[in-house]
């Protein structure tokens, strides 16, 4: 009999342990991770590449210390962060301060989980209008940009000169296509970009779409079709590789960095890698269809303060945000991230420090927010059909017109 009791007791202990574990889990869930101790403030960002010992990690910790609290920082993959934030808000344990990619801001605002910067008493007057535009909904800003980035064309100087192309001659789409033709004739590869079926694909397509005068609310207009036809023409003629539809911006960069491509469409953040690539490179603003610079989409993150039950926490959160977005902090932060600062004063300091940033500052000044212009949460429902259209046109499944017709039919539907 005794063994039976012993096993019975063991089983019961196990149940007890399991139940108390569940109880524990439920307890911490309801009280919220951010409130585990009032001296600890939770902080989320999409920079998993920076650990606690990195300059960014130290700056976040330092801003906490200055505000008199301890900051518990968690870094998520950028595509993950939006959903993680929604789930956390649903569970009532959103972080105190959160850095999110700019097009996500409108979604989070729609979910009602972000505070207006005005309500918190944060000053955003020095921030460039087009940069804060992506985080502005119905006239109110819901975050402070930490920095901005955008797209331009990197080119390989050696390949262009071997093919007899002068970068200055590239002013519009025709001259760019002519340059690609010469490069191909010289036995090199033309251009690489990212047309993957994620937000990155839409981000990379937008300069061409907008450069043709396209309108996101009418994807299948003749202008939109012209932009997609340009990309398709490049892929069909072999000026761009077929695998662009699988390329992320990182893999596209890796292709360019092999030194066999004349052009690569990529972002400010690759500038550091460009120096290490081992060949001479230059930067060209993406040309519009009929000449001039095409409007490019703004990239970059916003510092936001999610809604908390305990509103007394906002004071400290505000101090942390102010610390991170102060001019003194923006300069080193944006240097680390290879971003363009959101304020004119810091931009001037950046260019002084690194003259190579000058074309990027100009590009950012001409950039547009993807969710700006009243699109807000409509943007995601447009972006997804758009990248699908790019995919089906470039893979040869559909003509650009048919692909964009389908996209327009699906756009805006929830």
């Amino acid at each position: 009999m005794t063994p039976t009791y012993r096993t019975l007791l063991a089983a019961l202990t196990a149940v007890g342990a399991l139940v108390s574990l569940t109880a524990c889990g439920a307890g911490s869930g309801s009280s919220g991770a951010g409130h585990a101790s009032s001296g600890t403030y939770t902080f989320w960002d999409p920079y998993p590449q920076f650990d606690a010992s990195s300059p960014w990690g130290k700056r976040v910790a330092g801003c906490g210390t200055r505000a008199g609290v301890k900051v518990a920082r968690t870094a998520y993959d950028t595509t993950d962060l939006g959903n993680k934030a929604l789930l956390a808000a649903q569970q009532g344990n959103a972080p105190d301060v959160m850095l999110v990619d700019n097009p996500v801001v409108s979604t989070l605002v729609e979910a009602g989980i972000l505070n207006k910067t005005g309500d918190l008493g944060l000053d955003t007057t020095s921030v460039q209008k087009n940069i804060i535009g992506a985080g502005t909904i119905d006239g109110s800003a819901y975050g402070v940009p930490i920095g901005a980035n955008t797209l331009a064309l990197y080119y390989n100087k050696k390949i262009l000169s071997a093919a007899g192309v002068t970068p200055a001659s590239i002013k519009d789409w025709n001259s760019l296509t002519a340059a690609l033709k010469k490069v191909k004739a010289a036995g090199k590869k033309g251009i690489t970009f990212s047309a993957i079926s994620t937000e990155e694909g839409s981000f990379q397509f937008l300069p061409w779409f907008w450069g043709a005068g396209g309108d996101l609310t009418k994807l299948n207009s003749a202008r939109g079709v012209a932009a997609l036809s340009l990309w398709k023409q490049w892929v069909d003629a072999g000026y761009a590789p077929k695998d662009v539809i699988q390329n992320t911006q990182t893999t596209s960069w890796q292709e360019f960095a092999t030194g066999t491509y004349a052009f690569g469409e990529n972002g400010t953040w690759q500038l550091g890698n460009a120096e290490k690539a081992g060949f001479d490179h230059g930067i060209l603003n993406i040309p519009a269809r009929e000449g001039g610079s095409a409007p490019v989409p703004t990239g970059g993150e916003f510092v936001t303060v999610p809604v908390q039950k305990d509103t007394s926490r906002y004071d400290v959160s505000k101090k942390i945000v102010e610390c991170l977005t102060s001019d003194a902090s923006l300069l080193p932060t944006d240097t680390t991230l290879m971003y363009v600062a959101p304020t004119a004063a810091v931009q001037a300091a950046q260019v002084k420090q690194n003259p190579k940033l000058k074309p990027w500052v100009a590009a950012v000044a001409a950039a547009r927010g993807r969710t700006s212009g009243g699109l807000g949460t409509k943007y995601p429902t447009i972006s997804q059909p758009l990248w699908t259209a790019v995919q089906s046109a470039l893979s040869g499944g559909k003509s650009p017109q048919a692909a964009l017709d389908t996209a327009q039919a699906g756009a805006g539907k929830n």
Partner: protein
Amino acid sequence: MTGRPMTIARADRPRRRTPAPVQASGAGRLSPQRRLRRRSRLTALAFVAPLIAYLAAFYVYPLYRNLDLSLRDYTVRSFVAGDAPFSGWDNVRKVLDDPTFAPALRHTMVFTFVSIAFQYVIGLGLAVFFNRHFRLSGVLRALFLIPWLLPLIVSASTWSWMFNSESGVVNYFLHFFGVDPVGWLTSPDWALTSVIIANIWIGIPFNLVILYSGLQNIPAELYEAAALDGANTWQVFRRITFPLLRPVSAITLLLGLVYTLKVFDLIWIMTKGGPGDSSSTLATWSYQLGFGTLLPKFGPGAAVGNLLILIALAFGLLHIRVQRRLEA
């Protein structure tokens, strides 16, 4: 958690009365016997309790949440606030009317059945081959397990590099035979084929291992008898190996079905369901709806997930029926 004090009380009671049943059982009186029966029932219950708690926490609740998600009209706002209105079959109807649905269902079926067929045939061939016990057969068999041991992110990324239309080793190899480069992952005509090839490779070890262990259970005397009767290799396979392997085959195929139906990671890593939706299955589509865009559509995503569960459940029930019939 109300369960805890109750179970503790139960634990205390029998301990105090330990000696009683031991003496009583010999005497054959009624009430202690009943007590004994009750105690054994309690013991049984206590043993089952952890399992029930586990099932409730990790199976019932997530399934319930998924069902709930699919029956409500969730927007990001109502998801956070938790006040989404009940919308009945709206999400399911939306999903069924979606132009992506028919291709996704078709791709799921093609992906599943073609994968299974090749995995089984190749796995069976290898199992019979390794059953002969030649030198180094153990080492070779272990090598064949590699696809199973590798993390899926590694094998899927490797396949996607090999299939790369510009610099992939597969196209490089074809080049030697004068074959033009194939857009394995970039052409809508090839994408589904490519992910199926990768999935077959990954699934072979599973079939190999199970079928091999099934072969071990076939008595050697039968083969000896067949050899005496002068049966050739094909006859031995047709008349002995295959029929005696039938129960194991049925289980292998059905388990494979359930596993393959829900394959998501491999396809997502290699093609993300693209180009367009030429390799999207119900699993990738569900993820795409729920998490693939900046504005999640939890309701329709959950509805697709439920459809997938229903299909898997149908095959699961079939599995149980087949197993029961085999055991009977």
